[in-house]
């Protein structure tokens, strides 16, 4: 099965959970004026304005956009802040490509609606029944589930939780979302970087709405991140030992050390030396390593891709 076929199957066929969710027509997106009017992402004051007056000239047909939601599990909101740190880029994304249909901080919607893409931040506390219900609901209602950030992908710092904290001391078991539901795409990192989130957003848009060539490129770009999602829910600095050095693949570039958010990796005689007690299990080192995954089809086109993403983010 080619990439495109498998993507189509993934996007439109596989998660046949709800029974009634067979219709793949793009949903007429509910417009969230709140977000568009919020101005700077830092001012997250939700201000609902009835949009009676349409700005006729600059509006693109809404059906061209994809619908996106941000689902907040046990995370620190750092992932969302990182998304917002795209500044004008975020506004362009929300303007041209995506309607934010669900987001606790930015969109005034109570229940998890149907959407094209759910960005899930945080791991799931299985003692918190609301969290469990919401993650199940998310899988049912979203065509693509993206684990946004290390806690959703791998548990990250929440792996070290052992309960006992006030005022819910019984909340002690936190699982990466992939232990509870099927996940389509991983964006590792603590926090995931604004540029990585931006690139995935643009690629997800191209995959769903682009022409054939764009779809193929976006598919090739997203495939490694989909493979990470298939590979499991455990990450550690040890991955660069197990899967790179032990496999005879490390060439000492140092990308892993640069990517580590807690400086757990130093390069000693040209190889990563992991201070294992410092590692928070975010998965950035391994995902950043050019010898974890490397697609010539994608990276050889780096100039074109960077230009395309830049162009896509022009207001």
């Amino acid at each position, binding site marked *: 099965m080619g990439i495109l076929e498998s993507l189509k199957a993934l996007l439109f066929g596989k998660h046949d959970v709800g029974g009634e969710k067979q219709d793949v027509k793009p949903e007429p997106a509910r417009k969230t004026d709140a977000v568009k009017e919020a101005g700077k992402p830092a001012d997250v004051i939700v201000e609902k304005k009835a949009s009676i007056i349409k700005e006729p000239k600059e509006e693109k047909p809404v059906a061209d956009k994809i619908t996106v939601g941000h689902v907040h599990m046990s995370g620190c909101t750092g992932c969302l802040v990182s998304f917002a740190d795209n500044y004008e880029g975020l506004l362009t994304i929300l303007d041209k490509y995506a309607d934010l249909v669900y987001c606790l901080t930015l969109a005034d919607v109570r229940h998890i609606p149907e959407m094209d893409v759910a960005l899930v931040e945080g791991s799931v506390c299985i003692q918190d029944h609301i969290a469990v219900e919401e993650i199940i609901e998310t899988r049912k209602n979203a065509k693509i589930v993206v684990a946004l950030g290390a806690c959703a992908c791998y548990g990250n710092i929440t792996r070290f939780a052992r309960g006992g904290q006030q005022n819910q001391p019984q909340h002690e078991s936190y699982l990466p979302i992939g232990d509870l539901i099927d996940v389509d795409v991983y964006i590792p990192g603590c*926090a995931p970087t604004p540029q990585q989130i931006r690139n995935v957003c643009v690629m997800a848009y191209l995959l769903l709405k682009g022409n054939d060539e764009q779809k193929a490129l976006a598919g090739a770009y997203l495939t490694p991140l989909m493979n990470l999602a298939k590979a499991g829910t455990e990450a550690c600095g040890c991955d660069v030992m197990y899967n790179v050095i032990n496999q005879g693949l490390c060439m000492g*570039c*140092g*990308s892993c*050390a*640069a990517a580590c958010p807690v400086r757990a990796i130093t390069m000693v005689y040209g190889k990563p030396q992991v201070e294992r007690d410092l590692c928070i299990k975010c998965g950035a080192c391994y995902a950043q390593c050019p010898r974890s995954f490397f697609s010539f089809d994608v990276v050889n086109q*780096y100039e074109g891709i960077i230009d395309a993403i830049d162009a896509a983010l022009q207001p």
Partner: protein
Amino acid sequence: MVLGNYKQVIAARSTDAEILRGSQDGGIVTQLFAYALDAGIIDGAIVAGPSDEPFKPEPMVATTREELLASRGTRYSISPNMSLIKEVTRSYGLDKVGVVGTPCQIQALRKGQLYPVGLRDVPDKIALAIGIFCMENFPYQSIIQLVEDHGATALENVSKLDIGKGKFWIYTERGATVQIPLKVTHKYEQPGCHVCLDYVSNLADISTGSVGTPDGWSTVFVRSANGDDIWAKAIAAGAFETKPIDSVKPGIELVTKLATEKITKNQQYIEDRKTKFTVGKELRNPYI
């Protein structure tokens, strides 16, 4: 194809005698960075600097001509230049970053720009990526083994190491030359080099190496739009002396030949990893 995409390939050397003096070949890397620093194209560059141990490179951020001069010359050992790629934009505060690297490091850089998993705010700050040619690299312990054991020479007495004409060359401070055939050095190579499918830094803005041109000159591939722009400016500024590549010996054919040999050999090894080491299993293939 084995040479990647490029807009032009030429023979060149720096016009700066001071740069040429300590450079490995035509001083292309140091001259380009020095020019780009002067012209405000970069704020500084990640290079392989010297360290406490002889011929052991240490990644460093050069923001002055002096620091660039200190990094001249090839050190045939691993210099994890990418390890500084985030820090260079943080504590060093560079907005326009230059970086030199082996083909694999340039691959790491471009992957990092497209998939900046842990490289916040780095992708848009890469102003000039210079790649060097690379057949293989050695762990520092292998250099000790080769020079001190096989070459019977103390490393602190060595003035230059070079690989060329089928041999590993050791030049000493006192003028002696020791040569070791490459068939002896092969087993000491860094294992990760054996799956490497790039000889001439196909993904750099500009890439350079000694092969193809006479001693003291370099072969230069100008590759990206950005590289093309910077190269044209550097030429206009008189930074380089150039010759058409087909006017020099041995010329581009040798580069193509070596690139093809490297890639064919390593492709075979990647194939072998699927069958020759295992029963019903495969060693991991990083290229998907």
